[in-house]
């Protein structure tokens, strides 16, 4: 039996703007088990990064968590005082951001930045922490780490900085690593090196990874389970095989079809998803994908429940209604209950 590490239940996050509330996350429920690698896929505005920030308690005004609970090893994380959070964040849960240029302090040596984290969370002495920093840098594939720890961020390339960030995030052996688009700003050959690191992490049973990305290729290569988000909601969830070979939701299918096939070549026309993502200031009451969906029907004006497709595979789409039962929502996700009534 796998251990439940993180449970997110009915999460809603809104940002107050002059034009009204931007409902970035609108009732998201999922879990991550110890040691697994879960991909959270979505385009900009899908709510994937905001969900990650909510888990890390990094939502700042005008943003606000307006509903839902986040539990880590059975302990409720919302409303924890910031002091408690500081012990948790970077220690048991850590995060890597997209842009390694802005996440490092430009006027501090790499070694000093790393040892600061290690000393704070692990209580090591300065020389022990430095030795640990060198070991971690070597582990993420940085050559000559003894010399590198004395250098400044500008002396590192983009890919190396991202590796430093990952080394720092791993320095306290976190139980959960959240990586938000960790390779998006990098060249493809550098991305491949970072993905190798994530593949190694996948084999590590002590660290679970939530990998947030818009790149289906990255997900296919690195993840065991996938959560597909759109318009602030989860559209479909399943194993990588479920998502890549047995996708049910028209949005997932649309995404998979819109990328050119590598094999076969040819100039056949791409199958595009017409239209644009919904405006989250005034989101549609029903399925967020309805407006762009080739299968849209009258019923879609009403939000479907999550349908249970198979073990761990669920889809938020009325098309699944005839063949699959709705999920018993254990959560307080009231809208889903209302929708099924």
């Amino acid at each position: 039996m796998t251990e439940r590490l993180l449970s997110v239940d009915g999460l809603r996050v809104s940002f107050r703007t002059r034009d009204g509330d931007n409902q970035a996350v609108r009732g998201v429920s999922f879990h991550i088990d110890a040691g697994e690698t879960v991909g959270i896929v979505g385009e900009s505005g899908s709510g994937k990064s905001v969900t990650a920030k909510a888990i890390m308690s990094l939502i700042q005004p005008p943003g606000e968590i307006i509903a839902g609970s986040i539990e880590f090893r059975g302990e409720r994380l919302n409303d924890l005082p910031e002091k408690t959070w500081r012990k948790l964040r970077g220690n048991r849960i850590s995060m890597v951001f997209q842009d390694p240029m802005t996440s490092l302090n430009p006027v501090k040596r790499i070694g000093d930045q790393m040892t600061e984290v290690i000393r704070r969370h692990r209580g090591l002495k300065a020389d022990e922490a430095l030795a640990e920093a060198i070991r971690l840098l070597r582990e993420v594939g940085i050559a000559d780490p003894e010399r590198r720890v004395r250098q400044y961020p500008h002396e590192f390339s983009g890919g190396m900085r991202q590796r430093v960030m990952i080394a720092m995030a791993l320095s306290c052996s976190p139980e959960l690593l959240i990586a938000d688009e960790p390779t998006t700003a990098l060249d493809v050959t550098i991305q491949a090196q970072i993905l190798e690191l994530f593949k190694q992490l996948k084999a590590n049973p002590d660290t679970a990874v939530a990998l947030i990305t818009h790149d289906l290729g990255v997900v296919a290569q690195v993840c065991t389970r996938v959560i597909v988000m759109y318009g602030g909601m989860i559209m479909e969830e399943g194993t990588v095989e479920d998502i890549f070979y047995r996708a049910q939701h028209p949005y997932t299918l649309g995404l998979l079809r819109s990328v050119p096939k590598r094999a076969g070549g040819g100039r056949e026309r791409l199958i595009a998803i017409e239209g644009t993502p919904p405006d989250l200031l005034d989101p549609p009451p029903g399925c967020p994908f309805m407006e762009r969906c080739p299968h849209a029907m009258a019923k879609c004006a009403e939000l479907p429940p999550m349908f249970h497709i198979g073990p761990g595979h669920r889809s938020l789409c009325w098309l699944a209604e005839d063949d699959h039962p709705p999920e018993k929502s254990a959560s307080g996700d009231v809208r889903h209950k209302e929708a099924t009534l």
Partner: protein
Amino acid sequence: MSNDSKILVDVRNLKKHFVKSKDLLGRPSGVLKAVDGVSFQIRQGETFGLVGESGSGKSTVGRCLLRLYDYTAGEVRFDGQNISSLDEKQLKPFRRKIQSIFQDPYSSLNPGMNVLELIGEPMNIHGLYSGDERKEAVAALLERVGLKREHLYRYPHEFSGGQRQRISIARALSVRPDFVVCDEPISALDVSVQAQVVNMLEDLQAEFGLTYLFIAHDLSMVRHISDRIGVMYKGRLVEVADSDELYDNPLHPYTQALLSAIPVPDPHAVSERIVWTDAIAEGEAHELREVSPGHFVALP
């Protein structure tokens, strides 16, 4: 693309060096060779893809073709005419025929201009249409790129990224160009919107007989849209071939490394990454040689 159509763009030994620093007497002491001897031809109606990683010089090549930069050496012939040394006045007709679409649809449109002004501006500069006639032409173009006539008096901030890129495309096409330099035109767009824009670029190419230089780092999209592809590394072309040939039979180790690094959207795909660490030292670079018809590679 048939091989007998005429060569529209002919780039010969193009070099663009940037002076990084100067010594006391103002002589250049540090030089960045962004583009260092690049030659290729693009035939009429063809899409030539230029790929490479950041710093490879691919965007600099695009900017040289647009004469946004004056180049250090080499020449560019457009439709048989050498445009390398023309002054701004002589260049003007070519400025109409050669248009561009850039990556970031947020910074490439003036936020203070409405759609009619944005798309009408190039027409104004090149003296095409006026008054109501121009408005009609702009509205027709808008509809052609999938927007509506009602959008004429809206401002860029009212549009999504994909829609802004459509406006950029309409703006580029407003003066009926022959050749469009597309520099990462879809990189900033959402995945679900990229395919729309690529399809539209292909439709417009067929309709107006356009020739494209398509610069990108997304290798799978480049393969889809390009007839031929050039791979750049450190300011030089290391391989040029028909796109399928390049992907099926890459010969240069750098091309092999680049292609093998693409994450395939298939969890069962067995891919072995080829790592290439053997960086080409300066001065050691090799010339492109034709190894099979149309397939050029720079190897010793």
